[in-house]
């Protein structure tokens, strides 16, 4: 297949993905706000779960994607600049969706638990996860040559990924061995079925499609930024050469 054929297919897939995002988000609004009934115990506050759960799922999906892309970059046979760009784009989205998860959870917790925040194992793990990947994004800003930076980023992403289960288990052991959770009890877990289950499923689908569409957009932006940087450098070199040539010519004519 020639290049124009591939470009056309890519354009079609991108449009299709955008359509899936718009349609599934609209369906989520309809199912979550109109069709699904309010929860028997939690009332309308429970509708926040149709956003909170998908946001948490996408956050974990994003961090897993960052790790996969980093591993692909580190393996010499699959080493391509695109994996580093995708790892960065995915980590940024992961941080965004983790903040969204914590904010939505907090908004839900206030009416249901009576508190904005509680030291539950999942909440602590998610917060530490957020800090780990904010740190990863900070590492990406340390200046170095392109290859050195990409390799360092990939290692940092994999180290963070290995740390996540250790953080999770340590915090779960602590909260279960030390004291039982006082606010998050099994009785509060809603039994989801029917329209509520459908809303949650559509939410997960809509957020997953949104993640991939945003990842695509962020990746394209990274490619454009890199091209622009390269153009700026090439332009500066060209101007410097022209100046140097002018001064040599002036010296010769003098």
């Amino acid at each position, binding site marked *: 297949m020639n290049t124009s054929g591939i470009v056309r297919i890519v354009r079609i897939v991108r449009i299709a993905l955008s359509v899936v995002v718009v349609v599934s988000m609209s369906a989520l609004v309809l199912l979550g706000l109109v069709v699904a009934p309010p929860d028997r115990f939690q009332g309308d506050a429970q509708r926040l779960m149709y956003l909170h759960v998908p946001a948490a799922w996408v956050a974990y999906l994003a961090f897993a994607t960052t790790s996969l892309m980093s591993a692909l970059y580190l393996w010499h046979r699959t080493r391509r600049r695109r994996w580093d760009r995708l790892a960065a784009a995915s980590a940024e989205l992961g941080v965004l969706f983790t903040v969204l998860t914590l904010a939505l959870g907090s908004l839900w917790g206030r009416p249901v638990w009576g508190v904005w925040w509680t030291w539950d194992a999942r909440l*602590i793990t998610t917060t*530490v996860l957020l*800090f*780990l990947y*904010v*740190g990863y994004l*900070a*590492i990406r800003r*340390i*200046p*170095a*040559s392109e*290859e*050195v930076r990409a*390799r*360092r980023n990939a*290692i*940092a992403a994999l*180290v*963070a990924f*290995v*740390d996540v289960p*250790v*953080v999770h*288990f*340590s*915090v779960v*052991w*602590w909260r279960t*061995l*030390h004291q039982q959770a006082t606010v998050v009890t099994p009785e509060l877990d809603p039994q989801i079925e029917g329209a509520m289950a459908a809303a949650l499923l559509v939410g997960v689908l809509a957020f997953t499609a949104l993640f991939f569409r945003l990842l695509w957009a962020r990746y394209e932006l990274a490619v454009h930024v890199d091209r622009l940087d390269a153009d700026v450098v090439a332009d500066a070199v060209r101007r410097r050469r022209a100046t140097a040539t002018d001064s040599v010519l002036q010296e010769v004519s003098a």
Partner: protein
Amino acid sequence: MSSSHARLTAAGFTSQIATVARKDLEIEARTGVAAGRMVPFAGILVVLFAIALDPDSGLLPRLAPGLFWIAVLLSALMAITRSFALEREHRAGEGLIGAGLDPAAMFLGKAAAIAVELLTLELLVGSTMVVLYEVSRPGAVIVAACLLLASAGIACAGTLYGALTIAGDGRDSLLAVLLLPALVPLMVAATRAFEIAVDVGTGTATTWVGLLGVFAAIYASLGSLTFASLIEET
């Protein structure tokens, strides 16, 4: 990694680790730069905690395990920064690698030196807290195991994150942002084990000591595997 590294025997590898650790510790013994920063810093933290929490409130003996590890973790940042400053001066680290030193041995040697420095600091801070905070005398076996494994864990994770941040361009300000979240499991395990040792916590200390061992092993392996890539061409 060059072929000379591949041919290194187990004895040679251990000898390289010991050489690097001895070098860092000898420099520290002669200059006292890290100790001159860490000891006063940890000391003022011990005093500040007491002032902030009111020594008459009765909270200090109960909170001492957590406060102890916060003081150690924050002071450890200075030891790690100093350890990498040694290699940046006159590009000494590059010289060592150029002379045929295995990067994994360099990682473990530097981590061992940091662990020894931390152990010394922990003994000083711990005994000060027992006296000033009126903490009951802890069980020696749990405390010894906990101090050894936690120091190894902090040193290995610190050396790895130090290579990721400071070794690149000397930006030690990033080290705290990266290292402290990564040390959350160690902080949880070490504090819980200490609480049990001084009779203010419940449960079995061996679970937490085991977790400290796993943490140290994970970071020792990760650091040994990736250190070569991290210090190469930085």
